[in-house]
């Protein structure tokens, strides 16, 4: 079997080895780009495509996730999020395109030592205790035997399972199994943590705890790749997001960029004639809503000028309610456009 056809990608070429014509263009394995170069991105994907017979799961996904970022990977169900995660982890092979993770080809075995992964289907051996699952993964991760017990205890504590460590996983609720999965992903202080729908089975308290864990990861410099369809989740923790649909990237940016620069405002004004807004030069779209008037798609920073213009025309501004497009509205708009 040729290495290229394996679902388990081969290790990146090491220094001094022939890495082919692109060797000079690539950052070193697991690396930080060497002593001169900047750190390699945590994730760098170029035109990733994945076809399952006639079904196109990914249609040319390109993205870059910097080190230390909490990156939201957003999209509706079936958008191709989990497919992309599987390609990044080497669980599947791309039909075409290339992905580098922590400076090495996606799926590189040694690099996996620095990656924590919570799968969407978080199932563990039901006949093991939670502590045994964590110890098993510590062993597979190559943690020193003397560190395995302490690492398992720390992980149990972090995910709120300290009192249930010796219970069989088979007795756990779905939410507890998800917490355990998160604990498994945190073992060994990974540089990159990939969380695939990490709060899908959790109650509000659990979600709050997961957010705290994600912030803790960011504080220690780890990169978090958060795969979710829950926008609220992304709003709480993500520095930057990519929205994908039908296997294609629709938009990438910070949350405020994604919401859009244009804003809306609701005004209650007295002392002016009907349809007073038609005399303004602020732009945007205006409509009356009872005692209120709504201006939409206004250029950034227009609201103070708008209030000043109303006052200059002799109007009394009773109330001003600035409105920013919600992430949900922006998300739906993007999906609608796609």
């Amino acid at each position, binding site marked *: *079997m040729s290495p290229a*056809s394996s679902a388990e990608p081969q290790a990146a070429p090491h220094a001094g080895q022939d890495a082919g014509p692109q060797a000079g263009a690539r950052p070193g394995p697991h690396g930080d780009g060497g002593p001169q170069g900047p750190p390699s991105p945590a994730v760098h994907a170029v035109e990733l495509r994945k076809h399952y017979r006639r079904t196109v799961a990914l249609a040319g996904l390109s993205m870059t996730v910097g080190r230390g970022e909490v990156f939201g990977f957003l999209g509706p169900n079936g958008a191709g999020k989990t497919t992309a995660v599987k390609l990044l982890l*080497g669980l599947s092979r791309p039909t075409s395109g290339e992905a580098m993770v922590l400076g090495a080809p996606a799926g590189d075995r040694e690099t996996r*030592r620095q990656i924590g*992964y919570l*799968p969407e*289907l978080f*199932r563990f*051996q039901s006949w093991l205790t939670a502590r045994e699952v964590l110890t098993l993964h510590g062993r*597979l991760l190559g943690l020193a035997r003397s560190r395995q017990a302490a690492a398992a205890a720390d992980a149990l504590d972090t995910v709120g399972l300290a009192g249930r460590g010796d219970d069989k996983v088979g007795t756990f609720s779905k939410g507890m199994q998800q917490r355990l999965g998160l604990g498994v992903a945190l073992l060994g202080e990974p540089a990159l943590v990939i969380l695939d729908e990490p709060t899908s089975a959790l109650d509000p308290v659990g979600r709050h705890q997961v957010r705290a864990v994600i912030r803790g990861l960011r504080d220690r410099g780890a990169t978090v790749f958060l795969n979710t369809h829950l926008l609220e989740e992304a709003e709480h923790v993500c520095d930057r997001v990519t929205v994908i649909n039908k296997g294609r990237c629709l938009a990438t940016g910070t949350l405020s960029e994604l919401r859009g620069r244009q804003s809306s405002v609701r005004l209650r004004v007295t002392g002016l004639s009907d349809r007073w807004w038609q005399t303004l030069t602020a732009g945007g779209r205006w409509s009356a809503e009872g005692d209120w008037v709504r201006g939409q798609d206004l250029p950034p920073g227009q609201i103070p000028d708008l209030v000043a213009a109303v006052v200059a025309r002799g109007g009394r501004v009773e109330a001003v309610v600035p409105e920013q497009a919600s992430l949900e509205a922006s998300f739906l708009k993007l999906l609608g456009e796609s």
Partner: protein
Amino acid sequence: MSALTTIAALTMREALRRRLIAALAVICLALVGLSSWGFYRLSHGSSMTSGEVNGALPTAFILFMFMFSFIAALSASAIASPSVSTEIESGVLQAVVTRPVRRRDVILGKWLGLAVILAVYTVVVVGLQVAVVRAVSGFMPPQPVTAAAYLFGEGAVLLTLVLLLSTRLSALAAGVAGVALFGIAWLAGVVGGLGEAFNIPALHTASQVSQYIVPTDGLWHGAIFYLEPASYLSLQLSEAGDRGSPFFAAAAPSWGYLAWAGVWFVLVLALSVASFERREL
């Protein structure tokens, strides 16, 4: 501890925790107990002559061994069939192979764990059966250790084959296919013997081919041969010859056949590894 031995230990622990070994132990103890009663009745108080008893004891012993080998083969198929496919379907394996482990270590670790369970089963069952039968009837097969090795080989063939199937098929399909192939190979052995007895070369050739494709029956005949005392062997040959009985072997498998069995294991394990490495999870 390497990833391979970690997976092997995990596989053995699963068999213990899921009470597979306890279930096997209960069944085998019950069968050994039953056989001890049968052998006692056969050697004490039956109306047969001592010569007839001496002929019947090896036959009965081989029949019981066939039963144990059948249980071993079914158990091997049952425990190997879900070992990969079910863990892929449930997502358990995805969490394992995203660790810095080679996929080949996962497959070989599982095979090693299952093979150790099979080896322990074979040693315990053959040891108990030999000890009990000797105690109640005085009968002692000539080479029980060699026979046990062949019985282990027979079970390991099925285990290895089902593990390969499990990398691509569902647990149910892999298990059913494994047992069906075991049955077909056994029947092919019977048919081949009949072909030889009645001088039908095509049947004999078909049997030979099947023994190379799935060497369970060939190894089972090796086990039989080493359970047969010399007096029993010469008596059977002088009375009936080798007429295709699935419970009689006129000769030990050749070194060439044993070498092929070794190659077969390597080939099928390599196929299992390649199949799992290429599988998208």
